């Protein structure tokens, strides 16, 4: 196969993932300008290495892997210590309590979580951006891009159990932040104040 032949399929398999890679880059960087640079670098590297792409696997996951690696390498130069998630916490499993504290807080006022539908998109994006990178990546790849646990585990080079733990903690943290915001905005009554006044 010639050099140009080795790039065959790039347009058909990689380019349709542009929006998904851009969304992922946005969540990683938090800025449109940085996301555009990251996406450009991702596709440049992917194009150069296209002959190494294993046909039959998901191009989307492969592009996400490159995107995240480029992002993390750049971040190493300006590491945000407050974002480091303890691997001890990761290994401690999804937590002993299956009862969602947000759900408990909404009992009697909105136990089915309809208040989430009232929260504006920008506030949700801010809350996602505030998650530690490991949690944010897991939540974005699962809840937005629909990747299976095994694909995410491969992508972040961690066991499936760690991915599940990060998803659990990331979702809980995000829900708590959004719930507090909904209470502040009056989208949902604060059940604690209802209890106290009873």
């Amino acid at each position, binding site marked *: 196969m010639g050099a140009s032949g080795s790039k065959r399929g790039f347009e058909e398999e990689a380019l349709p993932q542009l929006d998904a890679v851009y969304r992922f880059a946005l969540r990683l960087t938090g800025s449109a300008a940085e996301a555009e640079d990251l996406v450009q670098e991702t596709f440049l590297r992917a*194009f150069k290495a296209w002959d190494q792409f294993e046909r039959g696997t998901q191009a989307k996951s492969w592009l996400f892997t490159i995107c995240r690696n480029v992002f993390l390498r750049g971040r190493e130069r300006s590491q945000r210590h407050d974002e480091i998630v303890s691997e001890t916490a990761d290994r401690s499993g999804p937590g002993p309590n299956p009862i969602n504290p947000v*759900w408990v807080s909404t009992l009697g006022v909105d136990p089915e*979580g*309809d208040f989430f539908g009232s929260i504006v998109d920008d506030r949700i994006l801010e809350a996602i951006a505030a998650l530690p990178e490991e949690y944010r990546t897991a939540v974005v790849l699962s*809840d937005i891009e629909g990747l299976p646990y095994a694909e995410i585990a491969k992508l972040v080079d961690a066991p499936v159990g760690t991915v*599940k733990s990060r998803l659990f903690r990331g979702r809980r943290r995000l829900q708590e932040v959004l719930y507090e915001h909904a209470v502040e905005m009056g989208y949902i009554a604060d059940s604690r104040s209802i209890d106290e006044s009873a």
Partner: protein
Amino acid sequence: MTLFDSFKRLFGAKRNGDAQGLSCEDALRLVHEFLDGELADMPHAQVESHFDMCQRCYPHLHLERRFREAVQRACEKETASPELRSRILDLVTEGRSEV
């Protein structure tokens, strides 16, 4: 009221082995895997039946669904700009002409 008190009030001090042979505690423990289509040790239909039949667990499932819908809604509108798309296409075209 502590979280533990809430738990006791909702589910009783002992585990509820009820709908479809699955306790509420176990069903709630599996809620993420269920919604993600990733149940490993339990048939999807069995967990689904529990949530369908259990009035206490159903709102919990619904809350998780509403949360995911909100997250997806917030992110799905974001797409690459035409300028970025054009830059990527140029990059591919230039790359091809170089090989």
